[in-house]
């Protein structure tokens, strides 16, 4: 009896420790972003939003933040356009499915540094319609899609598998062309899966910085790339502000998706 209680308390203490471990980097950044000090140090001597002001007035940081959003939006669109037909086919086809699915998910297990340099070497010298692919946002979005697509497929295949197939057949019997049937019948039913896939793609692209490091120039730099490059040169809380903004955008995206989800469930 005593032994069991000791075991339970030990487990509780561990859970508290783990919670602390998860919250430390997040909490420390949120607090330091509001520090009034000129350097990052504890104890914090005063609080102000002056480093937010400095961040918002710095053209290079703002440019990087917009680049990040643009690339994340492009990645989300590409990932959805590619994953919807692929996941639908995988969920309905039987032949060679495990192999195909493994092949499509493979890029997720290749390190970012390897993907980054192989895309930079293999596609960096390619010119499309007279403009160089290297340093362009679209190339970064393509590289990010390599991680976003497998995630989207992993989310969407089970969604399409649980779909009632007679719905599609009924739509066809009633005269709906395939694409119309897809958008009017399948998409509404699979919306939760589609929103999750979009969210995963968006967050993956927003947070990724190793591939982007090899594929961007100073003009197309993303927010995490600029954070990484200024890690050692900058000692002021401004870096905490930039990190706070990055994490804040991710949590906003998650919050919006969650709000949509609870609103659609209430209907």
């Amino acid at each position, binding site marked *: 009896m005593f032994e069991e209680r000791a075991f339970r308390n030990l487990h509780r203490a561990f*859970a508290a420790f783990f919670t602390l471990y998860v919250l430390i980097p997040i909490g420390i950044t949120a607090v330091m972003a509001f520090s009034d000090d000129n350097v990052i140090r504890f104890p914090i001597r005063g609080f102000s939003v002056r480093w937010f002001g400095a961040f918002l007035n710095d053209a290079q940081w703002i440019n990087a933040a917009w680049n990040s959003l643009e690339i994340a939006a492009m990645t989300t669109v590409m990932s959805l356009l590619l994953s919807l037909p692929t996941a639908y086919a995988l969920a309905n086809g039987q032949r060679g499915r495990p192999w195909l699915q493994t092949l499509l998910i493979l*890029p997720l297990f290749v390190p970012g540094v390897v993907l980054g340099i192989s895309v930079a070497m293999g*596609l960096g010298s390619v010119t499309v319609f007279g403009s160089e692919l290297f340093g362009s946002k679209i190339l970064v979005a393509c590289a990010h899609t390599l991680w976003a697509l497998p995630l989207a497929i992993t989310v969407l295949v089970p969604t399409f598998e649980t779909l009632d197939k007679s719905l599609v057949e009924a739509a066809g019997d009633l005269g709906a062309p395939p694409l119309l049937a897809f958008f009017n019948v399948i998409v509404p039913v699979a919306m939760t899966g589609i929103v999750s896939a979009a969210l995963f793609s968006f967050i993956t692209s927003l947070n990724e910085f190793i591939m982007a490091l090899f594929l961007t120039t100073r003009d197309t730099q993303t927010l995490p790339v600029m954070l990484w490059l200024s890690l050692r040169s900058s000692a002021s809380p401004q870096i905490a502000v930039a990190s706070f903004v990055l994490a804040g955008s991710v949590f906003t995206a998650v919050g919006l998706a969650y709000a949509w989800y609870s609103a659609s469930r209430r209907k």
Partner: protein
Amino acid sequence: MSSADAISRRSGISGLTANIPWLLVPGLLFIFFVFGWPLLYLLRMSFNDHPGATVYVEAWTLRNYVFVLTDPGMLTEIAKTVYLSVVTAVVTVTAAFFFAQFVWLREGSARLIFLAIALGPMLISEVSVIIGWRMFFPSNGLLSYAMTSTGLSGQKINLLSTELAAVVGLSYISVSYCFFSILSVLNGIDRGLLTASADLGASPVRTFFTVLLPLAKGGIAAAFTQAFVFTMGIYATTNALGPDSLWTVPYEIQLQMLTRRNWPMAAALSIVLIVIIAAAALVTQWLRHRKGSRHV
């Protein structure tokens, strides 16, 4: 609408179903052009030569591979990468397992809160993780302040640039993935088995080792592979939190690519890294199936 029209429409839908492989074409084409082709190019690049000033010269040489696999410096880097990944995977899987077990035994809103906490590290960018821990470990960071102000330590402490800091940062990156792999396996286990074991007089420790652990083995193996594979490919966290002497294979790759501008060497190192990762994944997969078949 004529019946013939309806039939043709219907065949449109069944035609779509019959031609399902066509729907795979865009995804497969994308994977080929953005993943397959660059990897083939990388493989070709690894046989090229790097005679000095130029980035590369076309050749068919094994010199890069011979260097990577025989040079003592490179071999040390490979060994350090594997060592750090194994240590990180063990630490991460242990932490993820006990937290997953904790969440598994909870119900209702407490469970939801703990799930949200476990999801946290997955949503944070690696660079933000680095920045967060870089404000915690150094001598003017939170840890040192907390230790000196509570009197636990008489002087400031600095744990930045240690292997401990590197492992803490690295495990933060894969802990969510490990947690969810293990939790999904635990969710398939009947909690009554633990009660039954306790009722039959087994101590919690014995129940843990003879009942719970064998049942959760599949999830643990999957989580270990995930953590190992992820950590093998990371250099930013290792470099920014770990000691300066801790050079790993991914760090060497970016060094060759960006600083030395030796593309063939960067390519050869990448291929070696991929081969090590694939071998590790295959070995764990094989061990899992072998052990699984012995028990079932």
